[in-house]
C-alpha cells in the first residue's frame, strides 16, 4: 500500500533511506514519509539480504548446515552456532562434557565483547565521530587473533560440533585470553572518557528514541533493547543453559529506555563478559572436549523442540522439527534483529531524521540476520 505522492499531505515527501546508505550498515531500505525533516512514517522494506538459510536447513544434513549458522549474524557468529548445536543436542539427547561447556562460554563471551566493540564503532560513525571506530577495531583485532588461532577463521566461526567443540584450547589461547581481559579492562575508562563524558555525544543520545517496556513486549524485542527499557530479561538467567548456572554474573539494566541507556547496557555487558571469561578460565576443568560415540550421520528421533540463546543482539531461538531422517524437516531461526527492527516504525514517528538514525544505530542491526 505504498502511498503515492498525491495522497500525502502537500509538504510530505517520500525519502528512500535506500538499500545503499552509510547509516544502514547493510542493505536495509526504509521508506520514510517525511514532513520537512520530521518523520511521519517509516516503513522498512527488508529482504535485500535474504539468503535462504531456512530452505538450506531442510535440504542439508545437520552437520552440513553448521557453516551457515555462522553466516547469519556474522558479527556474533558463535551464538548462532551455539543455538543450533544445542537444539540438535537436545533432540538427539547428547550430553556435552564439562570442559566443552566451559570452552563454549569462553569463546561465546569473547565473541560478545567483539560484537559490542564493533557496534560501538559503527554507532559512533552514525553520530558523526570517526575516531572511536579505529580504537574499537584495534581491540577487536586482539580478540579476532585469539579466536582465529583457536577456530581458524576471523569472523564466521564454525567451531562448535554436536556434543562438544572441534578442537581443544591450547596454552597460547588461555594466556592470550587472560592478557586480553586485563588489557580490555584497562581500556574501558578510556572509552568512558572519550565517548560517555563527551557532551555532544550525550546531547545526541539522551532522551532520543525512547522505547517503553510495553513496546518491547508487544514487538518481541529482546537483548540490550529490552534491558535498556528497564526489564532484566536475559536468556542466560531466565532459561539457564551450558555452564552459565555455575558462573555468577549480573545483568545490567537501565530504566530510561533511550539510546544512552542501550549504550550503557552494552558497555556494562562488555565488563560482565570479561568477568565471565575470567571465571570460566579459572574453573576450566580437564577431560575430553567431545562426547563419546557421537554418530557421524546424526539422526535425532522424531519430534520438535525450541532452544533459546542470549546472542549479542537479543534472544536467538531455534525451533527444530525432525522426522528421524538425517535432514531437519523444518528449521525455524528466530533472529533478534528481526523483532528489534519491527518496533522502529512505531518509535520513529515524529522524530528528526538525525535522531531516528541514532535510534536505528542503537538497535544494533545486522541485515542478513534480519533477512536470514
Amino acid at each position, binding site marked *: 500500500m505504498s502511498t503515492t505522492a498525491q495522497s500525502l499531505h502537500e509538504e510530505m515527501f517520500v525519502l528512500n533511506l535506500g538499500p545503499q546508505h552509510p547509516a544502514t550498515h547493510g*542493505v536495509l531500505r526504509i521508506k520514510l514519509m517525511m514532513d520537512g525533516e520530521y518523520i511521519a512514517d517509516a516503513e522498512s522494506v527488508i529482504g*535485500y539480504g535474504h539468503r*535462504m538459510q531456512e530452505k538450506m536447513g531442510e*535440504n542439508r544434513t545437520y552437520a552440513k548446515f553448521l557453516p551457515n549458522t555462522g553466516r547469519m549474524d556474522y*558479527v556474533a557468529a558463535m551464538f548462532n552456532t551455539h543455538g543450533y548445536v544445542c537444539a540438535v543436542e537436545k533432540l538427539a539427547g547428547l550430553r556435552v562434557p564439562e570442559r566443552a561447556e566451559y570452552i563454549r562460554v569462553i569463546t561465546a563471551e569473547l565473541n560478545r565483547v567483539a560484537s559490542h566493540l564493533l557496534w560501538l564503532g559503527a554507532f559512533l560513525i552514525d553520530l558523526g565521530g570517526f575516531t572511536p571506530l579505529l580504537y574499537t*577495531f584495534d581491540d577487536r*583485532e586482539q580478540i579476532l587473533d585469539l579466536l582465529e588461532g583457536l577456530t581458524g577463521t576471523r*569472523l564466521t566461526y564454525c567451531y562448535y560440533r554436536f556434543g562438544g567443540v572441534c578442537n581443544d584450547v591450547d596454552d597460547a589461547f588461555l594466556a592470550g585470553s587472560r592478557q586480553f581481559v586485563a588489557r580490555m579492562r584497562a581500556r574501558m575508562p578510556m572509552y568512558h572518557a572519550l565517548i560517555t563524558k563527551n557532551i555532544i555525544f550525550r546531547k545526541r543520545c539522551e532522551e532520543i528514541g525512547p522505547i517503553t517496556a510495553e513496546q518491547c513486549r508487544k514487538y518481541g524485542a529482546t537483548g540490550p533493547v529490552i534491558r535498556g527499557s528497564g526489564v532484566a530479561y536475559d536468556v542466560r538467567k531466565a532459561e539457564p543453559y551450558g555452564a552459565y548456572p555455575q558462573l555468577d554474573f549480573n545483568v545490567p539494566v537501565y530504566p530510561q529506555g533511550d539510546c544512552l541507556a542501550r549504550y550503557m547496557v552494552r558497555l556494562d555487558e562488555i565488563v560482565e563478559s570479561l568477568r565471565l571469561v575470567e571465571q570460566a578460565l579459572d574453573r576450566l576443568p580437564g577431560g575430553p572436549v567431545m562426547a563419546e560415540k557421537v554418530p557421524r550421520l546424526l539422526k535425532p528421533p522424531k519430534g520438535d523442540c525450541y532452544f533459546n540463546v542470549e546472542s549479542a543482539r537479543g534472544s536467538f531461538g531455534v525451533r527444530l522439527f525432525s522426522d528421524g531422517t538425517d535432514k531437519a524437516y523444518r528449521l525455524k531461526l528466530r533472529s533478534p534483529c528481526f523483532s528489534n527492527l519491527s518496533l522502529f516504525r512505531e518509535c520513529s514517528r515524529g522524530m528528526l531524521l538525525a535522531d531516528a538514525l541514532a535510534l536505528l544505530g542503537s538497535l544494533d542491526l545486522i541485515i542478513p540476520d534480519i533477512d536470514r
Partner: protein
Amino acid sequence: MENQTEVPRGIIHFAVLNEALNLARANSLWPMTFGLACCAIEMMATGASRFDMARFGCEVFRPSPRQSDLMIVSGTVNKKMAPAVVRLYDQMPEPKWVLAMGNCAISGGPFKFPGQYAVVEGVDKLIPVDVYVPGCPPRPEALIEGVLKLEEKLTGKRRWPVVKPA
C-alpha cells in the same frame, strides 16, 4: 621488423600522458561504502588501523556513487538487490572498476545449490568485474592484494613483489 610504419614526428604521443593518468588513478582509488554482508565487516577491518588500506590512497570511503570510482561488491547479491546494484554501477562516473569480494560476489558462494531462488550467482552476471578476491570472507590482506592487482591492471607495474607461496 622492417614493415613497421614510420611514425611521423609531428604527432603528439599520448602514451606518456595516458600512463601518468593511469598512475594517478591507480594511486587514488576511492571505494564506495557498499557493504552487503559478512565481507563488509572485513572491508571495514581493512580500512581500520591494523591493515590500513589508506596507505594506497584507498582510504576515503565515499558514500555517494557519484564521487567513488571503485565499487567493492562485498557480500551476497540478492535477486531483490540486483536492480539496485546495477543502478549504483550506472551512477558512477566513467573510469570505474568493480572488485568482487568474497565467494558470494564471485559465484554465489555457499548459497548456490540446485533449486535456489534468491541469490544472483556471481555479480559478473550483472556488471563487468575487474578483480575477483576469493574467500569467505577473504582476509583483509587478500583484499589489499586485490587492490594491488587492480593497480597492476591499471598501470601495468606491480608495486610490491608478489608473495610466492612457499
